[in-house]
């Protein structure tokens, strides 16, 4: 028999072989784009992914968005946590980021800059995953044949810092040695191959993570935050530094929130967003959201965790976000960095300025970013507080004017205010500025308790989640209970004593 052609027969004509990947030397960097579009899933293929990765959890828990219907039954919005939904942040993290990271590491031995970029992207992608669940398999990823042990969250964060430090060092050295090298451009949807921008982003990310652990490990937090601020290559300082995933390099992208909102009609403005933005008379309201159809001429949000009648009952006509299909997803913006430094300064860290200066600069950067006007009036507003909320369909969901759910914080900086009041002001403004990054907003809400997001109206968690404290995490992935049962069961003990449910606090969630 002549079986010499069997290699050809047994090769998928639509799949790339190792030999194909060697052409044009793309092998080392070709898996970077996949990492970039999976932090917030934004490919046009399987564009339902973002909804499960983030929209039906963090985006609604953060107070930015709320579902206008019940998807046919109790679900996350009333804390009836759906296992089939809640495995997705984990799934996308591993299939979209970790696996591609492994490929880059395997192939880019001669291209240390690619490995450094992959490390930064991995930290940016996976900190969102650990911030959802707590312990994750991280340092031992890929070493097991059938199972991988979990790391506690402290170990994961320690690894994040080490990787960012290593990447910053590698890139700084690379930049000096190869000042004109732009080979990364082919694989870079974020900074088009600009290494210095990647270093700025890595420093800013390090600052974000430092503040995240500031209640759990204040000493390490301070060290890392000050390192980040003092690095010679700097931070994301202007809006032109913002880390955005821009379509191109052969990868068409689509904003997942646009899909969920405009295409699926599955998400709308949250009542908390309406309350805060209206209360501050915030010019960004009209930049972020569209006028509703349910209250013509006005913006209208939906409360989280309300009861639906099971029939179309009008919540669909609440405000959509103004995001476009082509709006790039944003990893981080300069305004966030400014608010992080404001909080650091508030803690007495050396951030290179005062809390007030960073706070006001943060608001200014945010206004600039969305091209909003009226900054001075806004910054001087010391009367506007969170506005009451009226549900146009069911008054049971109203938050009346005297409700304790409404915060009294205002916009105007008050140097005489308590540290806690200052913190609420900073985090509330950061929350507005980093819209629509629900994952980061939910994490910071859990860490600091701000802003005052309305609790769910109906709590169907069966007593596992406290309505006032709100949801603190998602249970471990159901896939892991099927396929990595022993290790995920062991990981429950890494949760710090709490059970594997939505009420258990993460390691860095130490403030309250």
């Amino acid at each position, binding site marked *: 028999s002549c079986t010499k052609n069997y290699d050809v*027969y047994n090769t998928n004509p639509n799949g790339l072989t190792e030999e194909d990947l060697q052409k044009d030397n793309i092998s080392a960097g070709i898996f970077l784009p996949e990492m970039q579009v999976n932090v917030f899933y934004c490919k*046009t293929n399987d564009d339902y992914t973002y909804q499960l990765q983030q929209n039906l959890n963090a985006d609604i828990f953060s107070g930015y968005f709320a579902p206008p219907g019940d998807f046919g039954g109790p679900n996350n919005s009333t804390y009836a946590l759906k296992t089939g939904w809640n495995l997705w942040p984990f799934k996308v993290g591993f299939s979209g980021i970790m696996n*591609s990271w492994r490929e880059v590491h395997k192939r880019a031995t001669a291209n240390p800059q690619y490995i450094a970029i992959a490390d930064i992207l991995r930290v940016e992608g996976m900190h969102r995953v650990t911030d959802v669940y707590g312990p994750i398999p991280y340092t031992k990823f890929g070493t097991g044949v059938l199972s991988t042990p979990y790391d506690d969250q402290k170990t994961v964060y320690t690894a994040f810092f080490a990787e960012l430090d290593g990447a910053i060092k590698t890139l700084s050295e690379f930049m000096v040695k190869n000042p004109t090298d732009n080979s990364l451009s082919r694989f870079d949807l974020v900074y088009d191959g600009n290494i210095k921008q990647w270093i700025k982003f890595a420093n800013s990310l390090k600052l974000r993570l430092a503040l995240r652990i500031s209640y759990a490990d204040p000493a390490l937090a301070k060290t890392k935050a000050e390192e980040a601020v003092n690095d010679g290559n700097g931070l994301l300082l202007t809006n032109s530094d913002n880390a955005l995933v821009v379509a191109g390099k052969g990868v068409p992208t689509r904003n997942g929130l646009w899909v969920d909102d405009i295409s699926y009609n599955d998400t709308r403005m949250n009542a908390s967003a309406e309350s805060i933005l209206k209360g501050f008379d915030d010019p960004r309201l009209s930049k972020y959201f569209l006028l509703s159809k349910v209250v013509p001429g006005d913006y209208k949000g939906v409360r989280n965790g309300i009861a639906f009648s099971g029939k179309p009952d009008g919540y669909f006509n609440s405000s959509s976000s103004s995001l476009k299909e082509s709006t790039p997803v944003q990893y981080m913006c300069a305004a966030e960095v400014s608010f992080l430094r404001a909080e650091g300064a508030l803690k007495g860290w050396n951030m290179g300025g005062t809390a007030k200066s960073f706070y006001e600069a943060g608001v200014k950067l945010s206004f600039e970013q969305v091209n909003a006007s009226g900054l001075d009036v806004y910054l001087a507003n010391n009367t506007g507080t969170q506005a009451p909320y009226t549900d146009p369909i069911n008054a049971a969901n109203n938050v009346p004017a005297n409700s304790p759910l409404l915060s009294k914080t205002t916009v105007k900086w008050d140097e005489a205010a308590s540290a806690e009041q200052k913190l609420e002001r900073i985090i509330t403004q950061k929350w507005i500025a980093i819209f629509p990054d629900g994952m980061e907003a939910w994490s910071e809400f859990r860490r600091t308790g701000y802003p005052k997001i309305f609790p769910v109206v109906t709590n169907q968690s069966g007593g596992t989640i406290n309505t006032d404290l709100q949801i603190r995490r998602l249970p471990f992935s159901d896939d892991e209970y*099927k396929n990595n049962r022993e290790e995920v069961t062991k990981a429950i003990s890494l949760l710090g004593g709490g059970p594997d449910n939505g009420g258990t606090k993460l390691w860095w969630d130490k403030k309250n």
Partner: protein
Amino acid sequence: LRPVSSGLNKPYFLETIKGTVKDNKGGTLPGVSVKVKSSGQTTQTNASGQYSINAKAGDVLVFSYVGYQSKEVTVSSQGTIDVVLAEDAQNLEGVVVTALGIKKSTKSLTYNVQTLSSKEVNEVKDPSFVNSLTGKVSGLTLTHSSAPGGSTKAVLRGNKSISGNNNALYVVDGVPLPSLSGAGTTDGFQISDGGDGISNLNPEDIEEVSVLSGASASALYGGQASNGVILITTKKGKAGKTAVNFNSSTTFDNPFILPKTQNTYGTPAPATAGGTPAYNGWGPKAATPGSYSPEDFFQTGKTYTNALSISGGTEKNQSLFSAAATNAEGIIPNNKLDRYNFSFRNTSSYFDNKLNLDARAEYIYQKTQNMPGQGQYYNPLTSVYLFPGASENFNNVKNYEVFDPIRKINTQNWAYGDGGINMQNPYWITNRNLFQVQRARVVGSFTAKYNFTDYLNLQGRVRMDRSTDQGETKIYATTLGNLSGNSPNGNYTSLDNLNSQTYADLLLNFNKTFGDFSLNATAGASLQNLTIKGLTIGGPLDPYKVPNFFSLLNVTQANLKPVPNAYREQNQAAFMTATFGYKNYLFLDVTGRNDWNSTLPKPFFYPSVGLSAVVSEMAKLPEFISFAKLRLSYAEVGNAIPQAYAYATNPTYPINGGAIVPFTGKPFSTLKPERSKSFEIGTDLRFMDNKLSLNATYYKTHTVNQFFRVNVSETVGYKTYDLNAGDVQNQGLEMSLGYRAQFGELSWTPNINFSFNRNKIIDLYSYNDPATGQFIDVKQIQLGGSSVIRKGGAYGEIQVKDFQRDANGGLVLDDKGLPQYSNNLITAGNVNPRYMLSMNNGFKYKNFNLNFLVDSRIGGEVISNTERTLDKFGMSQRTADSRNAGGIIANGVDATQQYYGRISSELTPYVYSATNVRLRELSLGYTFPAQVFNNKIQKIQVSVIGRNLWMIYKKAPFDPDVITLTGNAYQGFDDFAMPSLRSIGFNVNFTF
């Protein structure tokens, strides 16, 4: 007694001998060859079975006719010799076509072969002929869609493979057919069943069907035949006068059994005045029951089959032309099938019959529209069965679209919402959610055989089968967003698929007797090449462009995602088979085959061996035993990787959404073929002058090295691992019992088929984790639906959630007084029948014949998501009966709706016994003899035919036959499947 004459003797005197030849049922036999043995003079009986020939007293007349035992009669003085020829009972003395088209004497067969004639297959026609085999072959389980031309799942001797294919292989004239199975036939949300390859055949082209149910019989075909073979021999042209046959059959179909729905309780009032009405039957009791019944939706299905064949030729060259048109409309409006078959076959011989050529060409064109599937998507039956006819008017729904003057398009008229199960206006679905597929298929085959001597020949064969499917899906604007890609303008998908198979083989045949010994041997090699190439592309129509303009150019361009479909596989094989005979009553059969398959890293070999002993010729048996044979065989068959897991040994990096992504399946370079080891022992017995026949086979099969694709934690860097493991055992019995009774002119030929199969999962897979050294034994796999594969269990097991129970097994009620489900899974049954029993009866009286088939399946369970949903929506008759009887009172309040809402949250109460007995087929025919037409027309046969006329007994609230899915998952799972059909029709056959 006179001495027997020889040609040398001078005749005393010649006289004309006349007579009539009849069969043992009293029918006359035309075309019987009558030969004077001494002189060689021959003639044939005419259309009325009469002959006349000159012979002298003492001559021996030989009457021979294909399919009948020859008879010799010595001429005495009388001038009339009437002869009755006995049928060559089930070809026991004859030959059957076995694997690769090799003919073997039935005596020498070491395994079970069941043969059906064209007549048995075609008596009661089905557009897909395989469905006509139901109840006629023991050990064959058929499940199929009731839509005309839908796919059929044919399982012989039980399911063997967990991940692979379990369907029998179809072989036409010795060559395996590509399966051409329709897409999407494996999950619970099947969209549209495209039909399979076998359903394309023109049933009238079939001469004979042989079913080789065991691996021994089919080992020569290799892995693809490990589930048995259904072997089809097509008709050839016949020498002699040109014969024209025209057959026309018309059948009318109606739903056989529909679920019992209620029409006394209507919808509850909308929550707010003028709001959307709810779509369920949990509202108040209507003053008078509504008149709506789901039957209102169905139309009478019609199937017209018209087939013409012309046959003729000389002794050296025969041709057959056939053409057939099948035009069918389903019972669901707008479901259509149109099929046209054309074939031409020429058989010829040259050089004094040394060279035989056989060429056949076939063209098939088939067009289908809206082939029904099951599940929620695009299924009109959800809203039809759930329509609350007590308060709502179905006539309003018939007006399925209304003109929107602003958009200037017709928009869907459906006020009731999707009910969480993707419901739409059922007429909108049938008219505005269109699935159209056109298939053009060309088959060409050529065989050349050279006879070196009368015992040695070389045969070469090549067959090409090229099938192209072109499909379009048109989803009109205002279709439910979930089903239109959320575009306000509609959705359009186009698919093109080419499936091309080339098969070629070369066989050297040797067949010779040496004294008491004989050898029938074949050695050969084959090549099979399969190429599938296709493209599916489409998406939501651009919201900024034109509604209902179904062109790829009008699809949102960023959403135009080409999904290429490409598969290549080549198999090369070398094989041999030899049957050693001794005294024509003891036979040893051995086969061996070696495969080189492109999906596997190494070639693999598998053997079979068998023994057949005709005891009745070896020893003197009691008089009443006319024939007794024992047979015994063992075979192993290897199976290549299932196509669904193509390239498992050689993964490549996919491009997904413009990005190159890592592959997620760990390469499995040491993959071995799945291997079935089977053993069978059987007997063929005949009693009372061959009148009573019994055929029984016991078999046992172990299928090991099963192919598993296992999900692993993605934290190890892969999503799936592939491995060989497991052991699935099937054992069972196949029996058929036949009788031929003659009471004067009335003949009765009953035939009983009985079989059972017992499946057991002996082992799944286990491994030592190389990282931890831990031994992991996997005991259970979830297949989809409620199907579970469990070590120690059986294939097809159904698991559902149990209610919460106390220590005594009583229900633990919740605070509302309702039962509640626990997380405990219980085994609720198995979808496979425990026993299959059927009885076919043929009666013949003069020119009348009556046939009926009573078919039963005993045991086994089916699950109905339809019934569950009917309960949930308060639309089942059960819920109305319960309310009429005062409702279900829990904690002192009426909790009927809450109760049904609770129990219908799981499938547990909706597992039903599939036991049923039915009159599956009935036909009554009359043959007008040639004399009626002055012999201008040979004969006209008319018959009235019926299928599913009477459900004699059943337990489930629906016909368990509706189960349509042909994959391994979701077996026995009914989810708004199209009802089975009661068909009544008539058939006219003209032979000129």
